[in-house]
């Protein structure tokens, strides 16, 4: 209704979840992504003490970056312990806190076992850690799904996008860390290319289909493609998705190109996730 104008109201509050939460998502993608890829590398003869030690250590560092930004984003950070003493298990955020804390413990054990060359214990624990890392990857989709006010986050593709983001970030981080040496570069490049390509396709499908879903979704697509978030979303798609796919298709044997593709992928992922996080929060709800 074009001739209806709000003439008196309170200011729209703006986004409550800003770049701290983007950092949380991004760092968690690296943390869980490297652990999701690790068994694949070990099974494909890229086994070495370096990869056994480096991967959980990398995951541990990024998981704690995730937890740090989670804590910083809380308005009562010193009450974080309430998560564990007053748990509400229907809240995906609460479940996530348990899984991330559990993963932290398992990662420390992996670092210890790798340090002490206890391969048997390491291999026995790995399936459990992998499952916890997988749940920690997808719990965010559940968290977004519980945000009943944010139409854009409640799409079914959010779950596969979380897994793909983890694979993108994990393979990029492992490529940059030169984990697994020369031999692992090619499979890691393939994982990066495939995950990025599929994720890009899903984004394009959302862009094409979302405006037909609801007025809210159409408004958010406008924000992402031509509104105030285009400076995050469009460069993010180009840098983090289009260029890395082109790099994998054209020069996956070139270590320098793959290192650049990894940096671009991590940068673009941050930008796109940030725009995706902000868009529905800019919608007036009342």
């Amino acid at each position, binding site marked *: 209704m074009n001739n*209806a104008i709000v003439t008196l*109201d309170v200011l729209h*509050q703006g986004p409550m979840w800003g770049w701290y*939460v983007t950092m949380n998502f991004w760092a968690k993608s690296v943390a869980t992504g490297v652990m999701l890829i690790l068994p694949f590398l070990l099974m494909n003869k890229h086994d070495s003490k370096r990869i056994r030690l480096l991967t959980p250590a990398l995951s541990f560092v990024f998981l704690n970056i995730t937890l740090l930004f989670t804590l910083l984003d809380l308005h*009562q950070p010193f009450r974080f312990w309430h*998560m564990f003493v007053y748990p*509400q298990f229907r809240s995906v955020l609460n479940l996530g806190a348990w899984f991330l804390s559990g993963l932290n413990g398992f990662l420390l054990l992996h670092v210890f076992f790798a340090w002490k060359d206890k391969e048997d214990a390491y291999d026995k624990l790995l399936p459990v850690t992998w499952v916890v890392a997988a749940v920690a990857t997808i719990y965010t989709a559940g968290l977004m799904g*519980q945000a009943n*006010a944010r139409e854009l986050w409640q799409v079914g593709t959010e779950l596969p996008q979380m897994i793909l983001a983890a694979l993108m970030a994990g393979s990029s981080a492992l490529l940059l860390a030169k984990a697994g040496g020369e031999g692992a570069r090619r499979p890691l490049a393939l994982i990066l290319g495939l995950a990025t390509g599929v994720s890009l396709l899903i984004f394009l499908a959302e862009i094409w289909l979302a405006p037909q879903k609801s007025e809210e979704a159409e408004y958010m697509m406008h924000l992402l493609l031509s509104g105030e978030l285009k400076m995050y979303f469009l460069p993010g798609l180009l840098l983090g998705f289009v260029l890395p796919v082109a790099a994998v298709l054209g020069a996956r044997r070139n270590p320098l190109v793959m290192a650049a593709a990894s940096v671009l992928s991590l940068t673009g992922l941050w930008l796109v996730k940030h725009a995706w996080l902000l868009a529905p929060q800019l919608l007036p709800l*009342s």
Partner: protein
Amino acid sequence: MKLGYLVDLENCIGCKACEVACKAENNVPLGSWRLRVKYVDAGTFPNVKRAFTPMRCNQCENAPCERSCPVNALHFLDNGIVDIDKDRCIGCAACIQACPYGAIYMDPISHTADKCNFCAHRVESGLQPACVVACPTEANIFGDLDESDSLISRYIASHPDVKVRKPEKGTRPKHFYVAGGAIHLDPLASKREDGHNLFNRIGRLDQPVEGHK
């Protein structure tokens, strides 16, 4: 007992007495609102109308805020009110992301989430919520929806145009409107931009209260 609220928009004159009463009763900090009245001007001069819509927590039966709260700070009282334990709240803002009505805010003093609770402390003492008492036109009706003889139940039964906000969200609100049209209830049915406002800015805060950019 299932307490509910109804606003007859035919009777609302946009005086904001409810808003002021709520602020005073609940010590709502400056810049924050548990209840507010939105004005929307519609039409083309000289055929213009101003629509007033009081907005507060919808006290949903299927409350997404209660479900998403990780520490049980948001909880149901026996009378159906969704209340918040501010001593338990960790300020994660998950409830703010979950509420499709934008009814929850981050209190800049306590650094916890806060919202309308139908003045649960007054209700417990047998009083009506402050906004109901303050309304000069009796546009606000509060009572037990389980009681077929209560004023609110009779009002709903006798008015075929009773609506709730965003029924498609499946939240089953216990806050009803009589004579509510799209410009009252649908936030995207009216333009929201600075330049057409009466007294204050209505765009967006550059830095949200208690938010991180």
